[in-house]
């Protein structure tokens, strides 16, 4: 006398097997979805002022350094002070309602609350100065900002992603004076030029812990 028919038992065993397989697959899928490439890229927050990089950096061809003044001197690529905006906007578009927050900030001294797009964890010490002076272009990490109306994150900014470049920097190194030329392309393979620059300037990106974690 048995409870289950022979067939049922067979199915039971198959089912047991299937469950194991599904669990494995589920894990793999979750891991894929949680990867920064899926999770973080494309982040495009709404900014308090509808500032268009496409207009300023792209169409008007303003250099990144005009606003982000400290990239070459400091860890931080400072977000410009209101007065930098006002340099032009005292006479350009001085009535535009879109610029009201800017004018308010200038008048009151209160900061404009920009929303951070490219965010690294607190224990990561990224240094703009070191990268820019070595000839790593803005575009390598921030993408074609000059074509973005709203800035969005285009790279995963994961540790693995950082290390890829630190272990093979050649394709991303260019003459330092060209770092802000986002559309610049060397004739031929960028890696060749990069390798040459790396040799000449003795660039050796670190891949030990304290290079970024202190």
């Amino acid at each position, binding site marked *: 006398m*048995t409870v289950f028919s022979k067939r049922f038992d*067979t199915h*039971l*065993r198959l089912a*047991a097997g299937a469950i194991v397989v599904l669990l494995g697959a589920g894990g793999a899928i979750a*891991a894929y979805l949680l990867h920064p490439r899926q999770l973080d890229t494309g982040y495009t927050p709404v900014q308090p002022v509808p500032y268009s990089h496409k207009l300023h950096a792209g169409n008007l061809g303003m250099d990144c350094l005009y606003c982000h003044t400290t990239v070459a001197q400091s860890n931080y690529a400072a977000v410009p002070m209101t007065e930098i905006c006002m340099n032009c906007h005292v006479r350009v578009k001085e009535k535009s309602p879109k610029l009201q927050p800017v004018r308010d900030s200038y008048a009151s001294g209160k900061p404009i609350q920009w929303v951070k797009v490219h965010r690294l964890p607190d224990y990561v010490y990224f240094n703009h100065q070191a990268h820019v002076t070595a000839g790593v272009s803005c575009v390598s990490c921030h993408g074609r900002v000059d074509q973005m109306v709203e800035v969005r994150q285009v790279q995963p900014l994961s*540790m*693995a992603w950082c290390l890829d470049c630190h272990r093979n920097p050649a394709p991303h190194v260019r003459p330092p004076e060209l770092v802000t030329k986002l559309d610049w392309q060397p004739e031929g393979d960028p890696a060749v030029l990069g390798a040459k620059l790396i040799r000449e300037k003795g660039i050796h990106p670190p891949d030990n812990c304290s290079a970024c974690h202190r």
Partner: protein
Amino acid sequence: MADLALDPRMELNPPLVTGGMTYSDVTDKVSSIVEGKAPKQWWIAMAVAVPLAGLLFACLGYLVATGIGVWGNNSPVGWGWDITNFVWWIGIGHAGTLISAILFLFRQKWRTSINRAAEAMTLFAVACAAIYPLFHTGRPWRAAYWLFPLPNEFLHMWQNFRSPLMWDVFAVSTYGTVSALFWFVGLIPDLATLRDRATTPIRKTIYGLLSLGWRGSASQWRHYELAYLLLAGLSTPLVLSVHSIVSFDFATSLLPGWHTTIFPPYFVAGAVFSGFAMVVTLMTLARWIYGLDNLITMKHLENMCKVMLATGMIVGFAYGTEFFIAWYSANQYERFIFLNRAFGPYWWAYWSMIACNVIAPQFFWFRKFRTSIPAMFILSIFINIGMWFERFVIIATSLHRDFLPSSWGYFTPTWVDIGTYLGTFGLFLTLFLLFLRFLPAIAISEVKGVLHQQVSAPHGVPAHGGSH
């Protein structure tokens, strides 16, 4: 049923099952435990075990919420009761695998009536042990995430495969998995028996699912035998490897008192020693609770006492060797650490260890003690205590007086340390009692195999599979 007493072989080879039990007697006896109502003793034991298990989870919760600071660990004593208990529990587990796998391969029939329980004990001991390495970081979620070498796209970096702790992760998880499989495979025919005897639909369904469609057909038996043999073969090396690797946690360090090559054999022997002590403790209890005197006979118990005597001697010898080497090495730090064990601030721990591990087993030279239930119960408890102290002595005394006198310290456990340790007993007992209650505590099919002293049949009697 011939009169066994007249069988001439009996003189050399006393019966493993006494009281002239028949196949159906065995089945009935074992199954009745599961099928009948739980005896009073069982409820009493549960009443003790469950609250203790609760205490464990309370302590762990507090630890995770607050940090390792709630334990007594400090600098220089970075490991205290946590790793002590870990090693101790892992050690306990060993007897199970030894009995079920090694004795099986050596055709030691007397194992049959205890191996099931012993395996269960292994499983539960490993579960208790695993708690400590996981929680002693204070942030188990991190430990769990980082310690397993998942190929990871986030960081492009691997674990440190030089670290003995890394080896531990593999050793212990493998050990746990294989023991679980071995145990479950062994259970299948008996689960089928229970399924077939079951009277209520729920029981039928549950045991039916668990027995994975066992029918006791010849082909099933053939596969079964093979699988069992293979698993036995797999677990055998694990008995040696697991505790050797656990001992590497200490042996590979440069700390005097840890930095020694004797550890692997010494730890394995100690593990078997404590493991058998624990089996005796539990078996005498089970015997008392369920009156299994005919199945767990004096022969079983006496054999185990002999094993304890032997391993106890090995352990004692290891202690001696350590001291000899410390002296012979002419290494100042080495010499100091061992003298400090015996005469330093932790002298009491050291001498309790000697008393329990070296002196206590000597009683087993005498048949009187080997065959007296109370005696072996008490002595086995002593040995368990002694083996705990061994691990504590190795860890705490080596750490609290290391190289620079400026950093010397002392370890005192907090109530959370104690609560966590007692708690693991609660967990262990709860699981074991549930096992006694709901699963066949004795391998029915195997015991049947030794009912008639057939030296030939390696295992069980197929014809009589779970089909009554």
